């Protein structure tokens, strides 16, 4: 067999990338295979560690203080506080100064798309001037052709939340757009290239001219997170100098440019770590070792032919229900590659709560690992000696309610990756 590694990581999202980099840092030869683009671009780009307890208590100013009270089986309980810190430290190193928040253990409160605030542990530098604990008044600016962010409504909601500043909102027409429905990448691209509007004046200048007329002494101006894809720092610096005010982004739902930018940085870090990367073909199955209960190879589907990829250690980081690391049908829920045990009520009407934001069992679907993150079967027995799981494929936590998605991916990804690398 020609494709053979020390460590093979399945899945290219935050958990998979972290696992691959951690494994590579132990000196292992690592390959990462993923089938599609990761769901990072569905997420805000914020690094939530723990914003609320599983009981809904919060927002938590200190996420670490709450770690010790988490129920047995929660991924943080499995890996322990050290792993959470190690995951964040690795993240801080990977993203450098493009993210902030590592100067304190406290959570920050970030204004959201709909005008609420949300606790998070790390945030893109582009978001940092928008912190809700900052007392500077803020003007929020929406773009008329970008549905889903009504700046004045968001500002009103923020004010109602009791933020220690006054927010106002305004909407402007973004220059140079002719269609009613430009994609977010189009806004970002026009700003990246600062294309000329007229008389040599670029898009950045034109946007700020239109915003200036709405300003009333605010020290900071928030925009939906479309301020550049390839050159966000440059775009923001220009807008700030034209406006004479700090500029920040408000994270938006899918597709999310902060998520895209984070994805780019992760893949640069993977390259730097010497990880071999293959995206585009799914892992569809595995072969066991002839002796013992280990995985020998995983099978990668290449349009109808399956190719075995061998490794000593494997990390499963295929995501949850959205990333299709967990699948379901009318009769049940499964982990499709290794068929690892996924606990779920047999009656599918017990998978959800009647309240849209109730305690949904489906949000906690996933594999159940031991403290080394090896998935366990229904009786608590380790399924494979050399398979670890990380990120959203893990069960027993509701990342959306807790605001803990990225933190769990980092903690379990770095933990699983390190253990995998050390065991080769």
């Amino acid at each position, binding site marked *: 067999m020609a494709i053979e590694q020390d460590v093979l990581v399945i899945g290219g999202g935050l958990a998979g990338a972290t696992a691959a980099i951690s494994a590579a840092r132990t000196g292992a030869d690592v390959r990462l295979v993923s089938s*599609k683009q990761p769901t990072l671009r569905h997420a805000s780009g914020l690094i939530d560690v723990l914003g609320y307890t599983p009981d809904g208590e919060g927002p938590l100013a200190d996420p670490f203080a709450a770690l010790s009270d988490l129920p047995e089986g929660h991924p943080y309980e499995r890996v322990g506080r050290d792993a959470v810190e190690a995951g964040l430290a690795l993240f801080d190193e990977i993203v450098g100064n493009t993210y902030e928040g590592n100067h304190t253990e406290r959570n920050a409160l970030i204004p959201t798309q709909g005008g609420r605030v949300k606790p998070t542990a790390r945030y893109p530098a582009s978001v940092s001037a928008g912190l809700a604990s900052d007392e500077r008044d803020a003007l929020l600016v929406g773009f008329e052709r970008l549905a889903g962010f009504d700046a004045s409504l968001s500002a009103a909601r923020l004010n109602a939340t009791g933020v220690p500043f006054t927010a106002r909102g305004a909407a402007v027409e973004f220059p140079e757009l002719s269609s009613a429905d430009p994609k977010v990448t189009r806004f970002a691209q026009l700003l990246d290239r600062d294309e000329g509007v007229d008389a040599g004046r670029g898009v950045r200048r034109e946007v700020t001219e239109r915003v200036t007329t709405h300003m009333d002494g605010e020290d900071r101006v928030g925009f939906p997170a479309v301020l550049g894809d390839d050159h966000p720092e440059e775009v923001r610096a220009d807008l700030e100098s034209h406006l004479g005010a700090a500029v920040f982004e408000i994270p938006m739902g899918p597709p999310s440019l902060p998520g895209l930018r984070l994805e780019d940085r992760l893949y640069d870090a993977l390259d730097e770590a010497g990880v071999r990367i293959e995206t585009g073909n799914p892992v569809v199955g595995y072969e066991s070792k002839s002796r013992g209960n280990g995985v020998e190879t995983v099978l990668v589907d290449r349009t109808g032919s399956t190719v075995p990829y061998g490794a000593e250690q494997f990390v499963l980081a295929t995501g949850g229900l959205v990333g299709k690391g967990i699948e379901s049908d009318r009769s049940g829920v499964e982990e499709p590659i290794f068929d690892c045990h996924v606990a779920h009520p047999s009656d599918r009407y017990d998978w959800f709560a009647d309240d849209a934001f109730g305690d949904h069992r489906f949000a906690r679907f996933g594999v159940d690992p031991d403290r080394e993150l090896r998935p366990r079967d229904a009786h608590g027995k380790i399924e494979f000696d050399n398979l670890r799981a990380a990120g959203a494929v893990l069960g027993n936590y509701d990342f959306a309610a807790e605001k803990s998605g990225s933190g769990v991916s980092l903690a379990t990804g770095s933990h699983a990756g390190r253990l995998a690398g050390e065991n080769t």
Partner: protein
Amino acid sequence: MSDADSPDDRGVPDGERGDANEDFEPVEVFPEGDLDLRSGADSCYKCSTCDTNCPVAEVDDEFPGPKFQGPEQWRLKRKEDSEIDPSIMDCSNCMRCDDACPADVPLSQMHNEARAEYVDGQMSKFSVEYWRNRVLANYRKGAWLGSKVPRLTNALANNGPLRKLGEKLFGLTAEREFPEFATETFREWWEERGGAATSKKRAREARADRGGADVQSEDKRVAYFHGCYANYNTPEVAKAMVRVFEHFGYEVAVPEQGCSGTPMFANGMLDDARRDAETNVSNFSDLIDEGYDVICSCTSCSMSLRQEYPELFTFEGTADVAAHTYEALEYLRIHEDLRGALDEAEVGGEGEELAYHAPCHARNQGLDRQAVELFRDLDGVGVEDVGDSCSGISGTYGWKAEKYDTSMAIGEEMFAEMADADGETGMTECPTCAMQMEHGTGYEIRHPLELLEDALVAD
């Protein structure tokens, strides 16, 4: 009162089920030859990941993007709704949306079908655009003629005033230089060299050199799908493929073949594509039955055989061909210790630096990083990835006068990355990406197989 009072509801005995003849009734599932792809929308999350990957939507906000063109347009369709939004012709068929979609929506299949329906039903068969597209899509026919008198063709094709006239009359951009025809096509060279018999001999010698045991090998057989471009324009790539595979002990066969269909799909000419596909599937599946695998050196050709054929056609053997088709390097990586071989090899020269661009159609097959990964271990050469942007030419797309600016706007990012990279040579697997790279930077562009030949095949 109710329907319940019917006295007779005992059903019909099993032996008389239905009309017995209907067992082999050839059900015309899609009566007008159109696929009903509405159910493809079932997988869609509406997450817009596809849109963020669309190079056209990024530079042209009038283009509604792949989500609209695919699952949305199809879901909104009713049977009697025949009209397809004309913006489908602005899709460049890069197929990046396919690779992006986390939910496996058959985006490019939907686009291909929609484009074909549009061309069929809404584009005038008397328009210049139609005929221009038809000619571009059928590049192979023109190339066949041109290659008969390559020098004359080259001179005429790159005559400035003629090109201007071509733009005016025919909508072909005057900005680009036509690719040169080789003075000897690959197939001419292949016949001259002795065809399959010679290849068999050489492969056997190579196997003997390597340790002899499997001199009589039934498995080391590949059928080469060279496509049009390697045959008429860059036979050196095709020759490199033959020599590299023979070096690893493979007997190469080069069956009769038509166009892979990529330019035809991209122009909504599904009928043209179907004709060539039928020939290709028939000829190659015969060889597969004899133990051959199919190798391509152009990633759009392999994409077509692997993905588009089974999505769009139902000839016998289509699935077989798809399952047995590989890109050249990919095949060697799976079946040979290519990494080990390159680790021990080196290429002469002063540490040449190559700016590598991964074609979108390589990305779709999960091959976008293999060249960089492989040549990392090769001494004497440095390969730098110039990023994941699209080159913008997308086959025939960038040749159309009205698409030229979009094509160059998309390519801008790649040109800049190439300029930033060390060295002044480019590398890619796709012939039209190579044209665009050369057009935007003036660099000479090589194919990974040529580098592999330099490294591994002693001459």
